[in-house]
């Protein structure tokens, strides 16, 4: 058993499950998407990226790339959310929520790819 694999696998699956939990619900209904869950998704995703820094193998590079994609989309969603809450006079409308959930869904796909790659690598090694 490899401690690094356990830690990384744990955070990668946690990011995926939290992300799914956030996305589920009506896409334009702000009541279905809670800001605390969103905060957790962003934090866990950044931790996953941090864990992959420094890996020089091919698969490590691929995992870093997918988690960077997820980070990018989630941070974009966070900026939109902040803008809607604090800058815009209209507040958090259904239209804005659609943008946030769309971006988070994109991050979800990136997280699915990450977990898929981890599974494939583990199965390939067979030890």
């Amino acid at each position, binding site marked *: 058993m490899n401690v690094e694999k356990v830690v990384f696998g744990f955070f990668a699956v946690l990011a995926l499950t939290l992300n799914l939990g956030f996305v589920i619900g009506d896409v334009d209904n702000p009541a279905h998407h809670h800001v605390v869950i969103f905060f957790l998704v962003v934090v866990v995703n950044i931790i996953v990226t941090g864990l992959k820094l420094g*890996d020089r193998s091919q698969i490590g590079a691929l995992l870093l790339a997918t988690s960077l994609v997820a980070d990018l989309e989630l941070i974009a969603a966070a900026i939109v959310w902040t803008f809607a809450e604090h800058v815009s006079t209209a507040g958090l409308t259904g239209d804005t929520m659609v943008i946030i959930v769309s971006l988070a869904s994109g991050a979800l796909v990136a997280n699915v790819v990450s977990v898929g790659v981890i599974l494939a690598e583990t199965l390939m090694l067979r030890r």
Partner: protein
Amino acid sequence: MARAALDSPDSHRVTFIVLRYMRRPILMLVFVYAASMVGWVMIPGVSVNGADQPLSFFHAFYFLTYTATTTGFGEIPAVFSDAQRMWSIVSLYAGVLAWLYAVGSIISLLQNPHFRNAMAQRRFAKLVARIREPFVIICGFGNTGSLLARGLSDAGVTAVVLDHDKDRINALQLRDYRVTMPGLCTNARIPARLIDAGLRRTNCRAVLALTGDEEVNLKIAVTARLLNPTVEMITHSTSEAHEEALASLGKDVHIVDPFHTFGRYLAATIGNPGIYVLNRWLVNERGASLDDVPELPRGTWVLCGYGRMGRRIKEALDELAIDTVIIDPKGESAPEELPNLIVARASQATLASAGVHRAAGIVAGTDDDAYNLSIVLNARALNPDIFIIVRQDLHMNQILYDQAGAQVIMQPSLVSARRILFELIAPLLKPLFERLRSGDGDPLLEHVFSELRDKVGSRTSPRLWTIDVNAESTPALFALIDEGGSAALGDILRDPVAREQQLACVPLVMRSGERIEVMPDSRQTLAGGDQVLFCGSDQACLTLDGTLHNEYTLRYLITGVEEARGWVMRWFNERGSSNESRAR
């Protein structure tokens, strides 16, 4: 190298030929069109509102376009006057004739042999220019050449083929090779054709001169040496004068004397059949297995045929201290000091007098397949237990040879082709076979056989591959050595799936600098610039390649500890270990 220098002077010949051929038809078309159009704009048409309106230039060209080409499009710009109708008869006939002349010229150009040659050359040069991976040039697509092309294709090496015989090039184009093998029917003595074949390209690895003509081979070798001083050269040669001339061309010239190669191989087979079996197994010959090494009886051998090849066989057998009786119909070709020479055809009576009953074996080694087969049948009738080695010259006689029941069938062209193939795809194999043929070969052969049987298996089809320890082909290993680490052969050959097990392959030869080690020990460590020749399964080759590219796998195989890959985990581990040492 400048682009112009790479192009052969003939590569623009096609354009030139087309222009020269089409000059007159094109001039004629232009003249006919121009004259007709001038007529049309001058001849008055049917008067409309009192003006005799002739056709405009545009209408004239439009009318000519569908009449002169005999398209017969029905629309006319205006109702014609009788004068216009007369002119249309003239312009129509002239235009159709001009077009017929032009089309006829194009067709005769397409059938012109020079033009077709030029086109074939251009196509060929384009195909060659598209090759990105290392390739070899084969001059002469005879028996040896075609066997070699097949072997190279199986090994995934691209080749460019030149032959002066059109039928041979057609035969090449009908084969199904795994890699592209562009072929051109041409005289390989012309330097420009060798340049077209990619001689000056940096990825040209070797030039093989395998034509039947010694002079041509020499010319090719000289051309290759002058135009590309670093290219490797392998030539066929049977005469000593040519071999001397070839050897003076410097290093990287390998002369393959088919008679000498065959003689030595045959004698090695008699002296040590294991070499024969190993050779067949390494090239994946059908039915070859490491388990059935034939038992060769000791004693006198009868040698039928004492030509150039027979002499080589005799020499090689003498070196191994094997007694021979020779039968050859031409006595005068043999020196007189041969006591065991019988000058006769190898009929049943002659074979009997040569002592076939007592002999250990017989070599039917003449250059006539039918004669060889009759010797096999006669010898078999006289002594059913005799060991028979027979030479086969023509591939088409394979069915007969399969029926004849000789223990060993040898084709000289195949022997040469394999020798060259090994030289190209596994140059390190040569020292192995040299050692096997030398005096201390027997225990070594035992060792090679037992290793290959244990690790690769005697029936699996083996693959030969060479690794070079450098930054391009083995980056992980090279980086490890560069950082001061050391990797033993036995370590890199561990299986990443189960570290205690070894991959299904055997390191046959290892070269470090000038030192060449046959069957290197697994504790042997590797250094930058080393080369190792492996023999093993395809799977082992892929896995080893993976190991040598992935530093984490490589370090895991050496140390047995899976290292942390990310900075965070590495920092965490280092902190843990420094805390531990502080606690101690």
